[in-house]
């Protein structure tokens, strides 16, 4: 059953293999355990996206959610396979805006590259890249307004770049040196930037999703005009917090955008094992809210859908669930080794392609860009980021510091230092 079920209208391509195929002593048991479509040694077989730009209407932002049912199982696209923008979802951004987007995405990728190298050299304790998913963050980051309050997961560093968090500050957070605005408390990439309305990132997955709904309830409570947006991975939709978020949002209808970044993998766990459902966006309908699936590697589509949902929320239309279809091009993190669980060329064959290449190609199509300009942008970014990292290490390194002094361990547990922590602080000192 699950097989046939899975094959139907599945833009993620691939086929679910019966586990029996690779099982040791399967036969005795009727416990159905799904598997990933491709494992190391397999040759990835992705169907190209059947959905084309223009297939899906762009309803009025206040349309009844039932009018968006096709959007939950379909796929909103703007860029076609030749890099041209088409269809009602084209956000019609200016070339200048597109170049800004490209820059944010390139900077994000170069930052990831650099920090990965630094981690390999032992300068960082850990790192987690967003390679291949840059459009997810850049698209939303540019479509939303500065006052909008964001609850990201650990894989949307692009949001921080889009909002202008200084690269130096981001690097200092990763190093955990004196200039880390979260005081060396968190692992790398767990940024917090109150100035930019970016809420502190947590490691426990999914916790931010219902928090964002609550934050949006506060927005409505005070009758303010900003919206709230949040992001989780498709694997994390299995958490209770995902259900809490959708259900509370369905009751109080606050202005919140809930993004599911479906990059096919949760560490080694393929989305087939995260749920038997076909579409993550389709969860929305039974909660009485619109769900939209979008090509997450298509910057224009991501921007357009975010804008539509933000308009809806600002106008009192309530929450929207957005599934961004993409692929985790790199390892889960520097602690991971994907070659153990998926073919190395699966990413290259992903039908969504590379978001940066696709946006660059589009700009070229528009006569607003060239391969040379692209190379220059990338080299400039690379150099600038290398420079900045040197500065960051000057402020302090993980191994040699200087860090905040040891006694700062006891700060920020409570607003004021209570007596028992004062005593422990003395104990640490003496």
């Amino acid at each position, binding site marked *: 059953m699950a097989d046939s079920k899975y094959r139907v209208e599945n833009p993620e391509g691939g086929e679910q293999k019966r586990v029996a195929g690779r099982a040791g002593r399967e036969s005795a048991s009727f416990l159905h355990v799904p598997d990933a479509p491709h494992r190391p040694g397999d040759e990835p077989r992705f169907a190209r996206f059947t959905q084309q730009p223009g297939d899906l209407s762009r309803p009025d932002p206040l349309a009844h959610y039932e009018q968006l049912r096709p959007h939950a199982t379909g796929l909103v696209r703007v860029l076609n396979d030749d890099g041209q923008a088409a269809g009602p979802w084209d956000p019609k951004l200016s070339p200048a805006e597109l170049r800004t987007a490209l820059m944010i995405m390139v900077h994000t990728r170069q930052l990831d590259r650099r920090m990965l190298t630094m981690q390999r050299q032992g300068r960082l304790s850990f790192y987690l890249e967003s390679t291949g998913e840059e459009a997810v963050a850049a698209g939303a980051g540019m479509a939303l307004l500065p006052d909008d309050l964001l609850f990201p997961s650990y894989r949307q560093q692009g949001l921080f770049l889009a909002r202008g968090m200084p690269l130096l500050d981001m690097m200092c957070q990763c190093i955990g040196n004196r200039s880390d605005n979260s005081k060396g408390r*968190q692992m790398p990439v*767990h940024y917090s930037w109150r100035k930019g309305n970016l809420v502190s990132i947590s490691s*426990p997955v999914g916790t931010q999703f219902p928090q964002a709904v609550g934050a949006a309830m*506060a927005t409505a409570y005070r009758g303010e005009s900003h919206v709230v947006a949040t992001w989780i991975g498709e694997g994390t939709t299995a958490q209770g917090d995902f259900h809490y978020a959708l259900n509370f949002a369905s009751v109080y209808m606050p202005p919140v955008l809930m993004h599911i970044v479906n990059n096919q993998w949760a560490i080694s766990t393929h989305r087939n094992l995260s749920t038997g459902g076909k579409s993550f966006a389709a969860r929305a309908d039974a909660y009485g809210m619109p769900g939209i699936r979008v090509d997450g590697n298509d910057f224009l589509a991501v921007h357009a859908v975010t804008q539509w949902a933000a308009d809806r929320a600002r106008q009192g239309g309530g929450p929207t669930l957005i599934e961004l279809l993409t692929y985790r091009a790199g390892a889960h993190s520097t602690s991971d080794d994907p070659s153990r669980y998926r073919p190395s060329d699966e990413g290259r064959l992903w039908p969504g392609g590379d978001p940066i290449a696709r946006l660059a190609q589009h700009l070229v199509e528009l006569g607003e860009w060239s391969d040379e300009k692209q190379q220059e942008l990338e080299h400039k970014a690379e150099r600038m980021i290398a420079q900045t990292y040197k500065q960051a290490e000057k402020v302090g390194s993980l191994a040699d510091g200087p860090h905040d002094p040891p006694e700062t361990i006891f700060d920020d547990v409570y607003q004021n230092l209570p007596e028992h922590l004062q005593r422990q602080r003395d104990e640490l000192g003496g």
Partner: protein
Amino acid sequence: MATMNMIQAVNSALDVMLERDGNVCVFGEDVGYFGGVFRATEGLQKKHGTHRVFDTPLAEGGIVATAIGMGINGLRPVPEVQFADYIYPAFDQITNELAKLRYRSGGEWFAPLTVRAPCGGGIRGALYHSQSPEAYFTHTAGLTVVMPSNPVDAKGLLISSIESDDPVMFFEPKRLYRGPFDGDPHKVPSWQGHPGSDVPVGHFRTPLSKAVLVREGDAVTVVSWGTMVHVVRSVIDSSDVSADLIDLRTLVPMDLETVAASVRKTGRCIVVHEAPRTGGFGAEVVALLQEECFWHLEAPIARVTGWDTPFPHALEWDYMPSRKRIADALTRVMEA
């Protein structure tokens, strides 16, 4: 001043804070239209509006998570968990998020929640309407843990908790809502005439992290909190042992000074709480005191607590620390 039972005192604290601070909102299961299964929020929705006091879906995890988001976005939420026994679906949001948000963000973000939850036994509630889970929270740095034992403390401490920018777990011993239960299952005492039921009508604060000396003596120190404060008191009153009785009121951060001073004076100590013994907060009190007052101790510190079992239905009165068990401990500690 007015005479209030503990439910009226809680209701009054919420009413006062809703009135004073437009960012205070109160919500939870059956909290809005109905006014709460224990009536703690009765009349508040009608008075303050449906967006200030409202019902939620049946999901403690969602209630606390959304409350954290509201707190992050500028509100001062006072969610209710209908029974402390049902707080565990929210345990991740409380332990990993609420308690650690300020720390992990270097002080950039915090959520000033006060999570209210009726706790404790004595109402024939068995395993799941009787628990005293305070020790799961006293072990979690970043949380303030409060448990009042009378109406005036309940109101003053609840107001201080709501005004605190630190997250507070506020446990209300449900057996005390309508009267100071003194350990006799057959009596139904009323707050009428009890000094703790004289409660200022308006706004006032009772300081957090300050214990109170309920009665004074010199032979032994009894440390307790919640319902047991009254049971202990009735035992002391009917015994000829001269005892200090200390009601901790706030468990974390704890008022060690007051307790240690008393134990230095008496040289003997008993800790009494309803929660199971192993890993109960009583263990922490003992560990601190044997370190602070070692040279003054004339006898081992005794613990009278709930047993290390779930909370039973038919044998409830054999489970809860009884007058007899407390009296025996008094004798034991005095004779040691």
